[in-house]
């Protein structure tokens, strides 16, 4: 889902895809920024202290988070905090068992035969893909009783980080003679790409599965060449039913206490079609962990918003988030009544609903965080510290003195455009009307064809993307079109020429009803025909509408894109200023590269009581029985209804810990001090959502499946003896 959104975002230059679709989310690579002319500004003569005294806040040591890199591992901190003597061998073992799973999740090797563990929710597309005729493996689950039953997933790959080489000096050498900050950034990035290509081809001569990526940290303060081994024959070994993997469904998403078996197993194969043999795997913890035990997450967190300015947060709080949330809320209300039916169209609605409601919940939780004045106060205090340090140094002042003013001014410009941008929130994505999404594809495709000099492959790709858009039921479409028109009316006013042009003065509901009655684009076959016959030349009812709307849409997008470019540039400079002052004393922002996050297993205060550090299978059955009147989200698969007598329901099922995680960490192993598997990260609690702006661990928690719960389910419910034999520690 998010993958497709991201592609369309890149394709159309839309800057407004829903973020944080799930704990795992697509991370867009940094945009190479066009040069933006800096308006001359005078640095402030004095610094005004922020008015935050009333909140009595202190800047925390880890406000920026604890996502440590393996380039600069936190040996001293681990000694200080946990009395753990983590030497280079410890960090190497921690690093080598971890995997990037596909393009948006984390995973790990858990056996010498390259058994891979990740989340069920990371495996959904794979499970659906290997389902054969008449099979619905998401519904019934899958277990390969013998090795030959393991099913290869096309296009799935995992990557293991083999080595890290510091190439900062080489990259920086390229910029030594270049004048101007922006030119310097560009020179460094060019050099980084050059090194990446050279190292990759050198590595590939030894082993074609090796690939080198030069990772930029601290916005260019540091560069490292990461060598990955890519395994591109990955086969599904075991996946439980979606009902237990996603137990509690959308309502329980981002919550704890929780009772989900969000796990799946795969295996990496070599070129000869044999299971890979590896010593780089985590052993399974013999004992569980309890409250107070230190635990470590190794995974690939995507990104956070912890290092921006307060002005950016205020824009998010007052403009961006409220508008996005309103748009999502309206779509949730439209989609919800169509969820839960067993038809193809209902499945398509359900997929969209899941993403939309997930984003709604995530953004709502983030907004709650921003409305907490102490969060803003703490960020203001941190910003003041940084500004003071810049102010005290003549050279830093000369470089970065106007940075904060520039950023604030940019936010003011964005405010002016926010209303028009809101009218197009999620336009052309699967979260909106699929008829309008197809129409936008059709418009774009036809425009490129008319230009005449477009790459055939690119056109073919766009066509493929366009035809992959799924049908939604016409009544859902009608409501989605109507709500979009209503949003345009709110933003533009009824007298706006564009609005009048597309509605012809009729009320939006009528326009939507007429459109759905007339257009062939509501049906995938009809759309394919139109696309190939010349979309804009056709007399389909959607053509005049998109002809009226698209120019405004692209104009708004262009404006927002230019703001985004400038913001990226300013953010880069901000990170450089930060690096100049703090160096590597704090970890760089997450970048979907491998990180280690330390924490402890800990319950927390919630709901006027105390959430325990772990839950048990008893709670699973409590929820199953209790929620049956509410919805099917807490239904259990048939084989779970009568657990065998040997199944101890007091076995831990999920657990919480204070590790710093974010989107991309889904599927990360949770390890004890001995680097044994004690859990599998799959979510954060509702209190952790504001952590995207400021890391705290008072009540914010990472939620994991307890390793003991996984074993109990494999043993008593799935009788997955083959997996158990692989992962269980050898008996002494």
């Amino acid at each position: 889902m998010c993958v497709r959104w991201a592609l369309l975002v890149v394709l159309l230059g839309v800057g407004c895809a829903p973020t944080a679709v799930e704990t795992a989310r697509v991370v867009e690579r940094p945009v190479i920024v066009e040069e933006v002319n800096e308006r001359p500004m005078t640095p402030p003569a004095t610094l005004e202290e922020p008015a935050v005294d009333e909140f009595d806040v202190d800047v925390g040591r880890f406000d920026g988070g604890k996502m440590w890199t393996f380039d600069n591992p936190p040996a001293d901190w681990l000694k200080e905090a946990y009395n753990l003597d983590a030497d280079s061998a410890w960090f190497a073992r921690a690093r080598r068992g971890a995997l990037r799973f596909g393009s948006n999740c984390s995973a790990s090797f858990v056996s010498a035969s390259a058994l891979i563990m990740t989340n069920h929710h990371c495996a959904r597309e794979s499970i659906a893909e290997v389902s054969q005729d008449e099979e619905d493996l998401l519904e019934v689950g899958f277990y390969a009783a013998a090795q030959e039953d393991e099913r290869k997933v096309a296009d799935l790959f995992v990557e293991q980080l083999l080595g890290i080489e510091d190439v900062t000096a080489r990259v920086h050498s390229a910029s030594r003679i270049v004048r101007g900050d922006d030119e310097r950034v560009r020179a460094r990035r060019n050099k980084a790409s050059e090194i990446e290509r050279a190292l990759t081809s050198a590595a590939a001569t030894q082993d074609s599965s090796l690939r080198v990526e030069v990772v930029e940290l601290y916005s260019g303060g540091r560069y490292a060449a990461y060598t990955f081994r890519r395994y591109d024959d990955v086969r599904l070994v075991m996946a439980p039913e979606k009902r237990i993997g996603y137990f509690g469904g959308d309502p329980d998403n981002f919550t704890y206490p929780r009772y989900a078996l969000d796990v799946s197993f795969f295996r990496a194969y070599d070129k000869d079609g044999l299971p890979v043999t590896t010593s780089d795997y985590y052993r399974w913890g013999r004992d569980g962990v309890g409250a107070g035990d230190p635990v470590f997450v190794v995974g690939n967190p995507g990104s956070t918003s912890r290092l921006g300015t307060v002005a950016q947060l205020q824009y998010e709080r007052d403009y961006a988030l409220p508008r996005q949330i309103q748009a999502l809320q309206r779509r949730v209300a439209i989609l919800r009544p169509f969820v839960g039916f067993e038809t193809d169209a209902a499945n398509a609605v359900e997929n969209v609903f899941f993403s939309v409601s997930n984003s709604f919940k995530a953004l709502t939780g983030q907004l709650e965080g921003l409305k907490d004045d102490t969060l803003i106060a703490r960020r203001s205090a941190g910003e003041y510290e940084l500004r003071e340090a810049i102010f005290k140094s003549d050279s830093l002042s000369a470089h970065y003195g106007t940075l904060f003013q520039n950023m604030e001014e940019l936010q003011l410009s964005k405010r002016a455009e926010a209303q028009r941008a809101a009218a197009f929130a999620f336009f052309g994505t699967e979260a909106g009307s699929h008829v309008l999404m197809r129409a936008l594809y059709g418009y774009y495709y036809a425009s490129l064809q008319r230009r005449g000099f477009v790459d055939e492959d690119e056109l073919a790709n766009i066509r493929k993307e366009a035809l992959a858009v799924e049908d939604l039921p016409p009544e859902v479409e009608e409501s989605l079109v109507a709500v979009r028109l209503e949003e345009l009316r709110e933003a533009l006013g009824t007298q706006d020429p564009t609005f009048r042009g597309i509605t012809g003065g009729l009320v939006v509901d009528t326009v939507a009803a007429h459109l759905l009655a007339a257009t062939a684009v509501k049906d995938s076959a009809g759309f394919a025909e139109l696309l190939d016959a010349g979309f804009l030349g056709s007399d389909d009812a959607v053509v005049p509408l998109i002809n009226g709307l698209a120019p405004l849409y692209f104009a708004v997008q262009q404006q927002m894109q230019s703001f985004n470019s400038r913001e990226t540039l300013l953010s880069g400079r901000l990170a450089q200023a930060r690096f100049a002052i703090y160096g590597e004393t704090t970890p760089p922002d997450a970048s979907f590269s491998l990180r280690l996050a330390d924490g402890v297993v800990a319950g927390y205060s919630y709901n006027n009581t105390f959430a325990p550090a772990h839950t048990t299978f008893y709670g699973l059955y409590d929820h199953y029985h209790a929620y049956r009147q509410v919805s099917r989200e807490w239904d259990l698969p048939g084989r779970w209804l009568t657990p065998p007598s040997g199944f101890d329901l007091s076995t831990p099922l999920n657990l919480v810990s204070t590790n710093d995680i974010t989107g991309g960490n889904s599927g990360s192993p949770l390890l004890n001090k001995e680097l044994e598997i004690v859990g599998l990260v799959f979510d954060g609690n509702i209190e952790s959502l504001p952590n995207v702006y400021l890391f705290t661990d008072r009540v914010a928690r990472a939620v994991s499946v307890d390793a003991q719960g996984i074993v109990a389910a494999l043993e008593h419910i799935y009788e997955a003896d083959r997996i158990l034999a692989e992962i269980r520690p050898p008996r002494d």
Partner: protein
Amino acid sequence: MQCALVCIVAFLAAPFCGAQDYERWMFEEPPVDAMGFAPDEFWLENARLGALQLSACVAALVSADGLAVTSASCLRTVLDPATSEDYAVGGFLAAALEEELKLSGLSARQIAGLRDITGLEDADISREPDLDYQVVPREDSTILWEYALADYHDVRLVLLPEAAATEFGAEDGVYPRYSVDFAFVRIYVSEDVPLETESYFAWTERAALLDEVVYQTAIPQVAPMLTAGPAHVYSYNGTVTPPFTTFYGMLDLHHSHGGSGVWTLPARWLSRMSAMDLSSPLNFTVAGPCAQSGAPVFSRDLELLGVAFDDVGETSCVVAAAPGVLTVLRNIYGADHILQELEYQQLSRPNE
């Protein structure tokens, strides 16, 4: 109003949150429409006579022989500490009628009747000698109401579960909740003679349905009130509360907290729960604050669905569910004599 606010603020609750809120009436001026139901005189009289004021608590008559149920947490607050030490924590069960334990200093009051005496001369009003009378003016002073009060000074303890079970989790003001918060007493009219009554609530095995409108009777110091509101769920913690909790959840908390602290179940419970239907409803919530602790929660058919015992803010009342009480009587205490009395109205008398 609270419910409506929750619906607007948190969309997640919207599909689970009915438009109805709770409503309250005085028995003197009963509702024509009690949330979709028109109570008749018989119903109102039963709802009133079936409830007893037990100091600060309410108890509900549940048998023809004066057996009444209330909340354990409320009963504990009105026990004489000098005489209740032994059983207040460890619990108490009278295996037969003669073992029932007189609670010193505790009396029960029933609103035996109420009438409008506005404009009547005192001499014109007939009164019964064994009842007390109390005159209460309407708020706007246009009507004078007179209550006939029957006081019973012999209240005996029948069953009080262990504090570890009735105060499981010590989670005042919290839901989801897993407290076995009920106790049984019996009202006596004279030495060894239980109260005989036709006005009592019929115990039921069934759980309140989600959105079912249920009723509570309160007996505060002055005028009794009738409260109505739906059994409900509401948004909390990023999700939605369960329509009821179960004994599975109680065991979940016992084990997840490591069998220590306020979530510790007595050993007797743990061993006997293995043979129990753990999916039996334990607690549920009703919209609005509790009418009063110990108040009966009943259906429009006067079935007893549970015992109100705690408020969650102003929005919800937590209720010990009737089926859960039966499960505990059956599986933990083996209290067949109470079960029989609830089911068949058969009181096991001495020498019978």
